[in-house]
């Protein structure tokens, strides 16, 4: 990737960057290790692709099944779980379909039955992958072509905006929801209706780029990064990170 000696190039998902976590964390990493890290924030799909094509050295992503496939294909190596936050299903306060308090499976069933508007990111991002997983867990096919199933093909916040305009439901990561909430001066039109299900966990991991696939990749530095992220100092910092006063990520490195 980059020419500099101790430079590390990372591809990450937009959520880590958009929440400001990296801007908070990375100067510390530099200070501790002397490694200059640069990152490009993209969709999970593109991030994985950049790693597969050896354009970056390390990934910070949140799509465990895709990551596993990726490693099995020989593109990635040494996946390490770092932290998680969770997904929630949000919808209008009035909750026309009546999903509030239900578990994920029932909630989605209810939406499907009522043909209530559901906005999907539809961009194959980590979040989108998770959402598709949830639909699959209901045992019925993805409502790809249903009129009420809106595929926005955009980032999370834009998708929430679409949902608000359409008075529909959507699934979002909590970080973005907090941002949305604060933008609406804590009086958001969309409220959290479903949360806390184990299936809603959103696991972030660091994956190294496999040096077998990419001999030029700085695997050693990538591992240094991975170690640091999993280390006590970074874990503590992650735990302390607040967005608008609310904790966002729960460190869970083993």
């Amino acid at each position, binding site marked *: 990737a980059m020419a500099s000696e101790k430079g590390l190039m990372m591809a990450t998902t937009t959520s880590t960057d958009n929440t400001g976590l990296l801007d908070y964390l990375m100067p510390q990493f530099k200070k501790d290790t002397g490694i200059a890290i640069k990152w490009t924030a993209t969709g999970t799909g593109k991030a994985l692709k950049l790693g597969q094509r050896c354009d970056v050295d390390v990934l910070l992503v949140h799509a465990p099944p895709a990551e596993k496939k990726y490693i099995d294909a020989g593109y990635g190596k040494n996946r390490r779980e770092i932290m998680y936050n969770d997904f929630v299903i949000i919808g209008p306060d009035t909750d026309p379909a009546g999903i509030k308090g239900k578990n994920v499976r029932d909630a989605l069933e209810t939406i499907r039955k009522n043909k209530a508007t559901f906005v999907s990111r*539809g961009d194959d991002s980590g979040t989108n992958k998770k959402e598709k997983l949830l639909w699959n867990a209901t045992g019925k096919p993805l409502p790809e072509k249903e009129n009420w199933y809106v595929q926005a093909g955009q980032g999370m916040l*834009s998708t929430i905006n679409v949902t608000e305009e359409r008075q529909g439901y959507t699934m979002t990561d909590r970080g973005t929801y907090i941002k949305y909430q604060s933008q609406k001066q804590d009086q958001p039109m969309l409220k959290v209706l479903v949360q806390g299900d184990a299936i809603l966990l959103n696991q972030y991991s660091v994956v190294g780029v496999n040096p077998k696939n990419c001999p030029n990749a700085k695997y050693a530095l990538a591992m240094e990064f991975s170690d640091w992220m999993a280390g006590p100092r970074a874990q503590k910092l992650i735990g302390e990170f607040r967005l608008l006063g609310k904790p966002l990520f729960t460190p869970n490195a083993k």
Partner: protein
Amino acid sequence: MEFIISGVVQAIFLLASGDSSTWSAVAVTLKVSTCSMLMSMAAGLPCGFLIGYFDFRGKRALRTVLDTMLALPTVFIGLLVYAFISNQGPLGEFNLLFSLGGIAVGQTLLAFPIVTALTAVTIEAIDPQLKLTLISLGAGKKNILATCLWEVRFGILAAAVTAYGRVMTEVGISMMVGGNIKWHTRTITTAIALETGKGMFANGIALGVVLITIAFGVNLSLSFLRKQ
């Protein structure tokens, strides 16, 4: 490299097989860009003509402003339009957000300065004799407008084609105002952005080739206008 080749192959496949989501995006792109080109030409040609034909105080300043408008980022235009047509905006009741109409409005704003600025400079380059010639043959104001534009039709065509290229390829407005909603407001360019974001580079290339094929078709059918 390999994804370019597979992208091109796939483009042929997409077009030939009549892949419905691709064709939906093609239809949306054509609908919206046609609409916004018509609107921006209808407004831009007369404005450009007036600026190019007449000398007036502040003309140079106006030209500078117009040239600056050529550098309006599409996301910016998208945000502006969004501000007006979102539910909380002053034009919220027209339900333009996430609709083709909304995108067309934004793209019109995008194309208008291009059409206007290029028309103005083309009209300005007209032989000063033409003005007096037309008057002396009895041309009225509308005749003068029409004949001048026709005299420089190649320049106008270039303005239109440039604006069309801009409109066809923009992402910011379609994304922000249209919302990239599959089957509804997903254009080819937002689809390319989406595929690329997913890491499906070959798909992106394929859709790009589709777009270029359309543009080529449009330009081919315009090229008869270029006959001397």
